[in-house]
């Protein structure tokens, strides 16, 4: 895996209720403002729709710099920070990342910044419009968790998954309920390759919305996941949701003991298996097939070599 640079610990220090920004935050915002060439703009899917540069990485950083300089207040930025999809296209197009990242070990990290601002706003009681809808969404998904073992296992009924194994599939409730094709096909492929894996039946919530709205709850889930893997002596956790994977490798190490197990994205896992074991009983298909990694794997995790391998 590509080394992750720009672990900006100061993003963990919340912007307080008074909205004062630390000097690190001011410099971080300035790094993008200083460029002002806005290569982040035409790559932003939100900007392509709204054509409003306040909704871009440049807009976010400049707005925060305006707060740091006393021109604006945090509570007025919520609407602007609502729009970002956290895809990360802006961050990898930023000259700071492209031409300074490797050398200075510092790059533009807009998705992390947006998450931070949303998280801090929520913690400080600053409520954007449509906040109630977000709360309802999170509550709905937390509801899933109360009965999660049955919920997250249902898709696997009848599939050949082991009760105990060194390697487990981490299939979160979202994938288990709305994206079952991938895990189902994966299990069939693994069977054809003669590989036995288990299913992690209590995947604690990793959804980014919770990290933005209920950080304490999110970290509690993270701790439970990591402790659970170790207690069950899991060696490899195969993650199917790219957002889970991104947060597990980028956020978990900040506060959670992640020793004793490795986390691997499903594409890498399969590619490794095929490289080591060959195609086994898989039938060749005489068709041209293209594969597109999820955007976060490339843009936020630095995994940009085909097929999703570092």
């Amino acid at each position, binding site marked *: 895996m590509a080394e992750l640079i720009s672990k900006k610990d100061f993003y963990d220090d919340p912007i307080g209720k008074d909205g004062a920004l630390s000097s690190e935050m001011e*410099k971080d915002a*300035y790094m993008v403002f200083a*460029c*002002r060439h806005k290569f982040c703009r035409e790559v932003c899917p939100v900007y392509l729709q709204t*054509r409003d540069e306040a909704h871009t990485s440049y807009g976010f950083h400049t707005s925060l710099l305006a707060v740091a300089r006393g021109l604006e207040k945090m509570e007025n*930025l919520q609407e602007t920070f609502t729009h970002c999809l956290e895809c990360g296209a802006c961050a990898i197009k930023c000259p700071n990342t492209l*031409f300074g990242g490797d050398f*200075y070990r510092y790059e533009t990290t807009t998705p992390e910044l947006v998450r931070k601002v949303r998280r801090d706003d929520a913690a400080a009681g600053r409520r954007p419009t449509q906040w109630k809808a977000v709360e309802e969404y999170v509550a709905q998904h937390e509801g899933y968790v109360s009965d999660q073992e049955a919920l997250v296992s249902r898709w696997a009924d009848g599939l050949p998954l082991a009760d105990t194994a060194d390697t487990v599939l981490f299939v979160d409730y979202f994938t288990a309920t709305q994206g079952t094709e991938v895990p189902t096909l994966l299990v069939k492929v693994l069977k054809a390759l003669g590989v036995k894996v288990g299913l992690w039946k209590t995947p604690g919530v990793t959804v980014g919305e919770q990290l933005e709205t209920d950080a304490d709850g999110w970290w509690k889930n993270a701790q439970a996941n990591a402790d659970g893997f170790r207690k069950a002596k899991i060696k490899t956790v195969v993650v199917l949701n790219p957002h889970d994977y991104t947060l597990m490798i980028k956020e978990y190490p900040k506060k959670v003991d992640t020793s004793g197990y490795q986390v691997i994205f499903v594409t890498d896992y399969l590619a490794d298996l095929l490289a080591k074991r060959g195609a086994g009983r898989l039938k060749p298909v005489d068709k041209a097939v293209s594969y597109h990694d999820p955007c976060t794997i490339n843009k936020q995790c630095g995994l940009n070599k085909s097929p999703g391998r570092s």
Partner: protein
Amino acid sequence: MAGRSQMYTGLGTPPEAAVVDKAIDRLKGAIGAEKVVTSMHGRAVRASCPAPFPLHIWEEHVPDIVVLPKTTEDVVAVVRIANELKIPIVPRAGASDLCDLVVPLKKGIVLDVKSMDQVIEIDEENMCVTVQPGVNMWKLNELLGPLGLIFPDDPAGYYNAAIGGRIGAGGWSLLGMGYGHIHENLISMEYVLPTGEVVWIGPGGGAKKIRKSSVGYRFKELFTNTSGTLGVCTQAVLELWPKAEVVAPAFFGFHSFPEAHHAADTLSKSGLRTLSGVFTFDERKVEFLRRDDEAWIPQPREIKAATGAVLYGTTAEVEGAKERMYQIFEHCGGMYLGNEISELDWASRHDRYHLAMHGRDQSGNVVLMSWHCEDAGLNSSEIVEVNRKWNAIAAKHLSLPENDGIFDCWGSFSYVNSPLKGRGDWLTEVDWGIAELELTPERWARWVDIKREISLVTLEHGGSISACHGGTRPGDVELAVREELKEGSYELMKKIKRLLDPNNIMNPNKYLLDEAYED
């Protein structure tokens, strides 16, 4: 509206709060509330351009209102309201200019045309495309590429600049030697005058797609490069070119900048028709690149300066020209830097020079700085001497303790300037770093003095103080209007400004044009 800041520095009187409130109501009624931005951050992000910005007085340049028109009719409505209420308008497109073109000097309305982003017609048969002013060249070429066509305007801000701004700034293109700059690639345009009339501007005549006409005045010259002082482009018909089959860049190292310039100048006059760009890096620039650029750090120390060139054209043309280009560089003492640096350096030409971390204090520590590009149009015969004097200015100011960690000099690039040919004159720039976070009124004044000193050298050598970016920044503008334009041009500018903009609403006081209204 909040009360006015008492820090306003006297460049003119901004509109009163009551007038602003009235304008907001009128604008919302005319173009729709969703196209009118009044939040502080929505306005603050539209206060600056990539030129060094006086962050210590940011609030003074924050516009009162931002409007996001989608149509010519929207623009006309905004202009008419602004005239009625006598409130300034600052047009803003990509805002990638380096001449403060989009920086409001008197607050007022920023007219942000990015939502005017429609490609109206691609006319393959007649090789032209009609667009709204908010269209970006990169995105336009994504549409044109599959058709085997390009719009060749290629500024450093290629990925974010927009057509309207390119026309307003009279922009310069890295490929201008081969394909022309924006002026050569603009056939005609729709234009909203400061009083709200809509006119079609072409190379004489009213035909929208005719490149040459002998009918009427040639207003195209007048209405490109206006810095937004004479109105707003709302539609443009642009040239299309066949997409080049081959792009062949080459970089050569030299022992000194004079050697590099001699080689570049020799090549530029070689008559190779596929030669689309020739450029040089001086000694200070190469040293600057060695600070953090992984392509330049490993270059042998004997490489003190560099020259690059690029060929665009058909395979048959470029293959022959490449051979000749290499011969000329080698004959002039050049050392080929290799395919990798040649291709990658050219590929990254748009976005590599603007990192805040490039800045250094005199001990070599990183200091966050913003990029300033002081460019000039100079004849070939003057380049080496001007470069020497600019470096002497840098050495003098950077040796002063009070400037340590506040300013930094990042060396010089030069490029062939003449559109569609290589002969004669060059765009040469010296790049500086400015620690904007540390600016104070006194430091800003020192910076303006340094800029003025640099521009004076240009004028001493018979040059123009900007080939590329315009002469509207502090430190430039006084020299532009008092010296460079003193032989009648500035007086004529003032007459035209007052004639077309009787209420002085269009980007007021750019080029000190408030003087047009003094009597």
